[in-house]
Every structure is written in structure tokens, then in C-alpha cells.
């Protein structure tokens, strides 16, 4: 179906996101930090990126902003995934250019809804 890059430093959470995506037939690529995630985004064809915000080194907000500044990656929708559950965290992620926001702990219904919605939109375009 779609190619999804998951950038997540916590191995269990990476496995969970991968499992949920693979379960509905998506292909999953994974990165454990923003830098390697950006490298993958530049050279792979991607339909969606799941971006953890708290990452070692560059954080997810900065990485998203870079993705959105690059014409090659600007169209890849980004879902921010963060355990910072405050309203201002959501606003920050919007400012950085994230297309959707999911607060951890993620619930698969919400997760699928966001993924489907963004994939549907990017397919329609």
C-alpha cells in the first residue's frame, strides 16, 4: 500500500508503530534519530512520515521544519507523535509544519484515522 517512515528512538514504540502499520499492509522504513530519518526521506520515495518529537540530537520539530523546507520532501505528510501532551506542544508541532498530531500513548483507532486521512489526502493530490 503505502511507504511509511517511522522516526522513533524508543525500540518498543518503534515496534508498535511498525506493527500497526504492517498490520494494515503498509511498508515500514525506520530511523532511530532525526538525522538518519532525514537521510532516508531524501533518497526514498515516501507516502508518510511518523515523527517522534523527542529524539536524541535534532528533535522532531526541527526535522519536520527541514523536511517542509525541502521541495523534494515538502509534500510528504508528517504526523507528529509525542508524549508531550500539552496544548502548546500541539501548537508547536503545527508551527513546525506537521500535518497531524498524535499524543502518546497512541490509540490505534486515532492512529489509523490520522494515517488514513493523510494517505487519502496525498493520494488525492
Amino acid at each position, binding site marked *: 500500500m503505502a511507504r511509511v517512515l517511522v522516526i522513533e528512538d524508543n525500540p518498543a514504540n518503534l515496534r508498535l508503530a511498525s506493527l500497526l502499520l504492517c*498490520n494494515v499492509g503498509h511498508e515500514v522504513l525506520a530511523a532511530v534519530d532525526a538525522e538518519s530519518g532525514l537521510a532516508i526521506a531524501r533518497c526514498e520515495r515516501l507516502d508518510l512520515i511518523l515523527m517522534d518529537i523527542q529524539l536524541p540530537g535534532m528533535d522532531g520539530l526541527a526535522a519536520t521544519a527541514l523536511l517542509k523546507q525541502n521541495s523534494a520532501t515538502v509534500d510528504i505528510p508528517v504526523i507528529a507523535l509525542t508524549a508531550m501532551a500539552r496544548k502548546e506542544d500541539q501548537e508547536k508541532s503545527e508551527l513546525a509544519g506537521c500535518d497531524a498530531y498524535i499524543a502518546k500513548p497512541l490509540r*490505534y483507532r486515532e492512529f489509523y484515522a490520522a494515517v488514513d486521512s493523510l494517505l487519502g489526502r496525498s493520494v488525492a493530490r
Partner: protein
Amino acid sequence: MLKTGALQDAIFNSAYFSSIATDEKGVIQIFNVGAERMLGYAAADVVNAITPADISDPQELIARAALLSVELDTPITPGFEALVFKASRGIEDIYELTYIRKDGSRFPAIVSVTSLRDARENIIGYLLIGTDNTARKQVEAQRAMLDQRLRDQQFYTRSLIESSIDAIMTTDPQGIISDINQQMITLTGRPRDELIGAPCKNFFTDPVRADAAIQRVLTENKISNYELTVRAANGEETVVSYNAVTFHDRDHKLQGVFAAARDVTERKQFERALQEKNIELEHASRMKSEFLATMSHELRTPLNAIIGFSEARKDGLMGPMSDTQQEYIGDIFTSGQHLLSLINDILDLSKVEAGMMTLEVETIDLGSLLANSLSIVREKAAARRIRLELVSGVTLGPTQLDMRKTKQIVYNLLSNAVKFSAQGGCVSLHARHVPRAVVGTMAGEWPVHNFELAESAYSDFLEICVSDTGIGISREDMAKLFMAFSQIDSSLARKFEGTGLGLAMVKLLAELHGGSVAVSSAVGLGTRFAVWLPLREAAGVMGVAAGAATDASASAPAERTALLVESDDRTADLIRQLLEDEGFVVLRAASIDAAMRLALKNPLNLITLDNQLPGDGGWEFLLNLREHSALARVPVVMIAGPSEGNIALTGGAAGVLQKPIGRAQLKASMFDLGLQPAAERAQNVLVVDDDPKAVEVIAALLPPPAYTVARAYGGAEAIDMARRGRPDLILLDLLMPDVSGFDVIDALRRDLGTARIPILVVTAAQVTAVDRAALGGHASAIHIVDKTNFDRASFIAEVRHALKPL
């Protein structure tokens, strides 16, 4: 000669002078009438018998002799010689002495002594003329006494000044120091003579400010608690509080300034310490909040995997499991959820405590909020056969509250009540409006624990009461109830899983609203919690009303208002429910007066009137209505007893409903009055899609006159149009850029004015079960039409279905 002699005689015989003449030895030769009177001797007693020294104070004579001996440098004997020695040398002599009367009493006299000489200048005697000096002496004594008194007074005043703990000084109008006290010397470390005569500003660290203080005293006549810093000779600085007044002489002429400077160094130090402590505490509090926010994040990260995996596994996303596995994975999921709610509560509490939580007041439909809250605990209650009741005695209607926080309050109370109720118990939720005076009070015999209501201008409050028939709380424990982490009995805590934060949160949230909480309980019988939230004026209500008056048709379609006049709460609730189901916005009045007020203020489509209101009020009201032109056309449905139908109709009622009132009966009546639900009128439909072609395809399916179609090509536009136009139905695309269909639904459901508009989702995307779940969470009024699988007949059926009342 004769004349002169007579004059001399007169003087000599004057009663006011004592004239005593002696021979050269001092023996008295003449003793006149004055002398006789003053001294009490007869002339015969003394003439040729004694000298004037014998009737003088001997001590004085001794003293006078000694004095003269020194003065004239020759030994003079204390006796008559001492009296006349100077006169014997030709020196005129006038002095004071004390004469002793015959009766031994004494009096002061001034004596003038002259020597009497013969032609050859030989002394032949002495003349002593004396006057009684008593009166003058008395005056002098008096003056001396007054002087002493004055000195005493001055001493007293001085002591006062000196004993003052304040450094005191007086200055002239130019600020030159004229007097100081000891404390001033100590404070400045300078001697008195250095201070007096110097400009007082010299002794402060900031002479300009010191000068300004004096200027202010001179213009305002006084100055209080003016802070200055004194610099002492050794450089030491002292912060003083400077108080000064001007002083004037008896002619009100300005004399100068009287100033007192109090050492406030200690107080200053105390204040500074306090300030530092405050900063420290604020810092600590901020650190705590930051720590909690970080902790919350750190805890959510592992919970993500726990809840995420367990939920997916539980719901079969990873294949089938045995029942036992299913049960265990369910336990993991529930525990994860519990842990999450703990974390959220802690974070919320710390936010409120740190003052970081703000109130977001909006207009909310309280009735549905309460009903929603009940439905959340319904499952738990049902599992333990606990009955749930909602009793709202009055028109609650749109209320200005923070929705999320109010929900949290109600939910916390309800879930507590359900948790602590025994099997088969009953939990009821009451809501009503109360005046300020009622806040904090609870009816009944049970002991009450309440809190002081914060000062505010709010006069009316919403009271939300949750009662249970549970285990109850002892009087002592009620006090601990609202403190964080205080599930009263730790054994209870084990039995009734909970965070112990719920009630603390309820209290903090109520207080954040400007309200309060209370509890009343009896052990073994049950507990009642009450929360009072202030009823705020809706912001901008006036503007909306004005807008409605000029452009009533704009908001007309979806909104029909019924006034329900009913004194009995139960009946009112029943009729309200029925009317709301018919699509009315219901205003309720419990009395005729209230009804008239509401009727005059609100545009009405229907009035229902109970004729069994106290007194003959119902009939009177009906007649009154007919006299107001604005109200005369509003149909009135009488709620009457079985035998009163005909009377009501003649009284001007448009219809009559007989108790007990049922749904079918009401529907029929509405039909008769042409007040059937919106579905049977021409329908306003708002079609929302970012693709204009799609909009036109749908619009073509909704032809006039049955439908009028409004078009929106984006989510934001749709929200705006829905709010202004209040369409009867919205046909909504989900996948739009920027503001999606999900966002539109969310926004409309949050707004009381649009929350009831049915929405039909029309989407090209595969609508997943998950999408359906997400939409279903919002409201039951949302139906989904699949664009890919589209035929006209089924679409129209869907539209018709959606337009039917709920």
C-alpha cells in the same frame, strides 16, 4: 518754713515708711508711726533702748558683715556697724534685710541708710528708712516658681525627645538643622555641634531625595513613611522611614520642620528575606511543574508501548487468543489506562497549583453535558445494578462554563459516587440555579463540610449535586476529603481503585471557576457532594440579540423556541423532553411572573401552559398574553386536567393537552398547529466540499422548492456559514485541505448554536471502521454516504433520514 516743716512731718509720720533715726552709736532716737506699725514696737519701747541691729535678722547681719569686710578690705563687726558702715563712709547704701517684729514674726524690707552729720561734718547719727518688701517678694517667689515649672516642662519635653527611639531633628524652612536628639547623634555618628547649623540633606546618601522630602513637607505640611538612607560619619548606611511635619509659631508663621527618622533596616532586611524566599518558592514551584511535565512525558513513553500493544492485542489486531490470554491482556490495558489517568491527574493538579491552568469559558448546553457525563458512568453503574438519576429542576439551558473542566468535575463526582455505592444503590445528579447565599449550604440532617467562597461579584450560581447511597464518610474524614492523595482509608484505596486526586481536582477546578465545593454525609447512609459554579453573563449576548432583531430570518430556520410554563419540576422535565424532541429550544418558567418576563424578552413559537398553576394564574396569564400584540399570535397549548379542555379553548388556547401527556398526543397537537418538525418544511442544506464539481453534483440532487442549497468550499467557510445560517442539514466532505471535515464536525459540535444540526458525511475515501468510530464519537446525528458507491435514490433516502428529528 512752716510749710516745709509740715511736709517733713507728713513724710516722717507716714505709715508706709519706717523711719528710724539713731545716735552715732546706733541707739534709736526716733521711731516713727510707720516703724511702729511695721515692727509692732511702740516708740517708747525702743527709743534710747536698742539699736536697729537688735530688730534685724542676726544671721543676715553676720553674712553682711563678712561680705562688706571682703568688699571694703577691713574687718567689720556683725552688728549695727554692718548696717551703717557704708553710710558712715559717705556711700549711699540701699539693701534688703529682714526685720523681726516684736511678736517674733519676720518680713523683708528694703532699707535706705544715710548718715546724719553736724556742721563740721561729724557723724551725729544715722537715718534708716525702710519699706515693707513682702508684696514684691511674693511676686518674685511666684515668678521663680513659674520659671521652675517652665524649666521642669522643658526638661520633660526634652526627655521625651531624647528618649524617643526615632532620630529626631528640627530644621528651619531652609532645611538647616536647629535641634536634634541623642538618637540622631547615634544614627549619624556626628557630634551635636556638627549637626546643628548644617543642612540636614548632607547626612543622607541621596541629598536630592532628602531635599525633595523637605520640599514636600513644606508644601503638604507633612510627609509619612518616606524612605531615606542615612550615611553615618563612618560610612555606615541606615535605611530610615522619614516622617515630618511643619511647625508654626502662635501667629501661624512657619518656623521649620519637625522630623523623625525611624531605623527600618531590620524591617527592610525582613522584607528582602521574604522577597527572596518568595522568589525561591516560585522557582521551586516552577521547577516542580517542569519536573512533573517532564515526568509525565517520561512516563507516557513506556505507557505508549504498554497501552498501544495491549489494546491492539486485546482487540484482536494480532490474531486470536485464548480467553485467559484475552483476560490478561485486558488487565494490562486497563492498568495502563489507570496509570495514565494518574499521570494526567497529577499533571492537572500541578498545573492548577502552579496557576498555569486557565479557564476557557464558552457557551455550553448544560443539559447535554450532564446527560453525557451520566452516560460515561452508565456501564460501570449497570454492572453493579446501581440506578442513575438525573434531576434538573429548572431551565438550565445554555450556560457560560469551561466545558472540559465542568465535565471533569461532574465525571469525577459521578464516578466516585458509583465507585463507593453498594450493589443495587442509587446515584443521582441534581442541577439547579441558586443565589449566592445558598452556596456552601446543604439541605438535610447530615453533617456538612464546606469551604469559604471566594469574593466575587457573582450573585447566581449553578449548583451541581451528586448523591449516593454508599458507605458514607465520617465527620472527621470529610475534612481530608478534598486534599490530594487522601483516599481516606488506605484499605479502601485498595478496594476502590483510584488516584485519590479526583476530589482535590474537583475542588481546584470549582475554585478556578470562582465557585466552591461542599460535602455532607452520614456513615452507612450515603454522601452528597455539591459544586457551585458562578453563572456568568454570556459575553456578546446583547450583540446577538440586536442582530436577531434586525435579521430574524437569518437565524430562523433551525431555531424554534417554546416557553414551558409549569410549576411542577417533574412535569416540566417531561414536557421539556418531548418539546426538545420536536426540535424546540425550550425556556421554562415556574411562575406566571417569570413566564411573562421570558415571553416579553424572547421571540416564541409556542407556549405550553399548565392551568393548574397556583391560584388562577394560568388563566390570567392566557388573557394577558392576548393583550400584547407581539404575543397574541403565539399559539398556547394548555396542559389541562381531564375535564377542562373546552374552557381552555374558549379562553384563547390554541390547543389542549390532557395529563398524562404522551409523545403521540404532543406530536398530533404540533401537527394541528403547523408546528411539525423541520423535516416537513422546505429544507436549507449546506453542501461542503473542496471540489466545486462535487458540490454541484450534490446540489443537483436537492432541487427546490423542497430544498435550498448553500455552498461552502472549505472547512473554515463551512463552519462560518453553519454558524450564521443554521442550516437544517450539512452534507460534508471529510478530506479537505487545512480544515478537514473532522475539524468541522468538532467545531460545530462544540458550539451550542450548531451542535444539533445533523451532518451527513459524503466522502470519496474508503471510510474505515476507524473513521466511523471517530465520527461516531461526536454525535449520533452523523450518517455516512460513500461517494464511490453513490446512487440518487439511496442518497435522497439518507438525506431524508438525516433530516428526521432525532
